[in-house]
């Protein structure tokens, strides 16, 4: 289980986000740009649609034989001289890494961007034993200096202005008077982080894929921090959800052809790094030790669960950019590690359906996410199933359940329906403002606080039909 990051209700978080004008503008610019880049990349790539189907089929086929692929992967990583660890919970994953850090006498860890290490809240655990974790992806570095959380899967500092970054760097890095110029600020980060890379004992990364056939862990970055973290420190630890396994190098080529196009519109990210164990004899650089931590944290239970399809996710962020809800409220308002439409499903996977009692409704079910997803995950279908689960398990408030049960009965009986429409027409009168019902009294108010309702029509369709 992963604990939530914030404890205020979704309603408050969303209201706060909606009131932040800069956030709104930044989200709008970024998501619009990402959508256009993605569209252009696939527009120039006619085989893309076929490759998306293939990638989806590979993910499904891999899940069907996950045990075999996992055994192959483990055997191959070990044959190459690496160590494999199995973590059922976030706590177990943290313990494994903390043990490695202790045993190797590590003082500083450089981290390449990884959602899996965010998910298990690794940084706090490292700090607790006196190891300094340093985020090295520029966006993540900014977020870490500001003591904040990422707001987008692939653009973590999307919510910060260059002015804010200049101020932050000036204060935190004790370099007063830095200009609000991304070029200068990036250069400063390069200098600061270059030192850290050369000093660090531990390199911690996630993994975009792991190829079972060859025991290869694959990292995709644009900045080169993944390469740094796997080349310079004496120990490399990669943390990866079990669902990231793919069978072969042939499959890898299929995924690489669609991943960057979906995320940033690049044909390929700048660096794709295939890590195959520790430094070979005679090699000048590379870690003496390589560890792969395989993470369950709720994933395995979904192999036969309602959220199975979300195990296909490549973490490209395409569904965030097209989501009308994400575009309005941004990543922080979701309140957990993974934002956006897929984030709701992943949150439910990691923390159980209770955690998405409200979040499962933070979607208009428009289907844009399923269209944008490189592996065509049917996110809306699973959101609907989550809503049902929230209801079936009695997680939703009893008032909501009673109201919907009553509503369902009314809809099933023509007589009750006619009767209900007649009562509704009269009862709604005090509440209709400008053709919408904007606020209802008592516990009904919880529903209209974030939604307008269309009023019951003055004459029902059936009444009009009879007069035709």
């Amino acid at each position, binding site marked *: 289980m992963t604990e939530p990051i914030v404890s205020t209700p979704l309603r408050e978080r969303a209201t706060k986000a909606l009131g932040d004008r800069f956030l709104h503008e930044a989200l709008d610019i970024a998501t619009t740009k990402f959508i256009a880049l993605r569209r252009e990349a696939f527009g120039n790539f006619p085989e893309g649609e076929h490759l998306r189907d293939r990638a989806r089929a590979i993910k*499904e086929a891999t899940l069907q034989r996950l045990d075999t692929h996992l055994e192959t992967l483990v055997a191959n990583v070990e044959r190459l001289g690496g160590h494999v660890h199995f973590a059922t919970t976030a706590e177990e994953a943290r313990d494994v890494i903390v043990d490695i850090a202790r045993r190797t006498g590590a003082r500083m860890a450089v981290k390449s961007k990884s959602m899996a290490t965010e998910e298990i809240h690794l940084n706090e655990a490292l700090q607790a034993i006196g190891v300094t974790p340093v985020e090295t992806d520029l966006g993540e570095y900014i977020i870490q200096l500001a003591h904040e959380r990422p707001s987008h899967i692939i653009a973590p500092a999307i919510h910060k202005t260059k002015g804010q970054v200049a101020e932050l760097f000036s204060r935190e890095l004790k370099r007063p008077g830095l200009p609000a110029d991304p070029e200068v600020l990036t250069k400063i980060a390069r200098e600061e982080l270059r030192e850290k890379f050369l000093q660090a004992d531990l390199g911690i990364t996630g993994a975009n894929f792991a190829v079972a056939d060859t025991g290869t862990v694959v990292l995709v970055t644009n900045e080169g921090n993944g390469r740094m973290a796997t080349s310079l420190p004496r120990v490399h630890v990669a943390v990866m959800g079990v669902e990231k396994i793919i069978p072969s190098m*042939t499959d890898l080529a299929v995924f690489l*052809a669609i991943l960057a196009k979906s995320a940033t519109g690049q044909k390929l990210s700048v660096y794709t790094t295939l890590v195959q164990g520790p430094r070979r004899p005679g*090699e*000048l650089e590379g870690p003496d030790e390589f560890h792969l931590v395989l993470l369950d944290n709720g994933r395995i239970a979904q192999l036969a669960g309602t959220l199975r399809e979300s195990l296909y996710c490549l973490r490209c962020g395409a569904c965030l950019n097209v989501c009308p809800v994400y575009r309005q409220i941004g990543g922080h308002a979701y309140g957990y590690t993974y934002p956006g439409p897929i984030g709701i499903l992943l949150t439910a996977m990691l923390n159980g359906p209770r955690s998405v009692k409200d979040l499962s409704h933070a979607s208009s079910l428009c289907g844009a996410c399923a269209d944008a997803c490189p592996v065509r995950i049917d996110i809306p279908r699973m959101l609907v199933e989550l809503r049902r689960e929230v209801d079936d398990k009695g997680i939703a408030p009893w008032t909501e359940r009673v109201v919907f049960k009553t509503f369902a009965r009314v809809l099933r009986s023509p007589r009750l329906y006619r009767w209900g429409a007649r009562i509704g027409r009269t009862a709604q009168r005090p509440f209709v403002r400008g053709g919408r019902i904007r606020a209802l009294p008592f516990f009904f108010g919880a529903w209209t606080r974030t939604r307008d309702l269309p009023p019951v029509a003055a004459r029902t369709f059936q009444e009009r039909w009879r007069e035709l």
Partner: protein
Amino acid sequence: MSSKTDFLTRIRTEMAKTRGLFAASSAERPAQPAQRLDLLRRELSERWPQTLERFRAEFELVAGVFHRVATAAEVPAALERICRERHARKLVAWPAEDLGVAIAPALAGAGIAVESMPRAAVADTERRRLRGVIADADLGVTGADLAVAETGTLVLVSAAGRPRSTSLLPPCHVAVFDREALVESLEHLGLALEAWHEGVPPAERGAVINFITGPSRTADIELTLTRGVHGPKEIHAIFVDGGLSRHG
């Protein structure tokens, strides 16, 4: 910590619940990848100029600088020009055997010091010294095991004599390659990777294989594209028409 057995048992228990629920759709690996790659290379030798042209176009799209020389003997002069334009004086390079061309003697004549990476294991003190040298270099010179036309990507396999950071720490990276390295697509790259891993003992495979597509970049501050965040700010590729010598 959980054991491998616990982990696999839980996976199998869950998998058993889904039997028959999902349509099976297994992914295919190519049979005999090495032979297929050979065949592909032979086909490619008929139309390599088009493939090279596509590589050049894509490489330039990702901000790479493309150079072309007639023979390996002209490589040092091309490097010297790149150095002079950037006032670069300190080079680190793969050794002549891995590069396929000797560059140090000619460049020394032009006052540019080249530190060649050792092909054999060295003591820890020497390793530390060399790391400092690479980190301090103005330019890193490497070969390329593959050049992928579809994406303008250079593929580098690490090994003794081919340290990973030669193409990473210096602000400018120059890769030297020839026809042999050219492949057309990511699909062919997948095939080459299958072939490399087939029948080769794990210890002889590179510990790291890097696909490099342009200079290091970020857009993390207000989506402003900035180059050279951790890796090189510049990347060059020198294509040698007459080919490089291969020692292996």
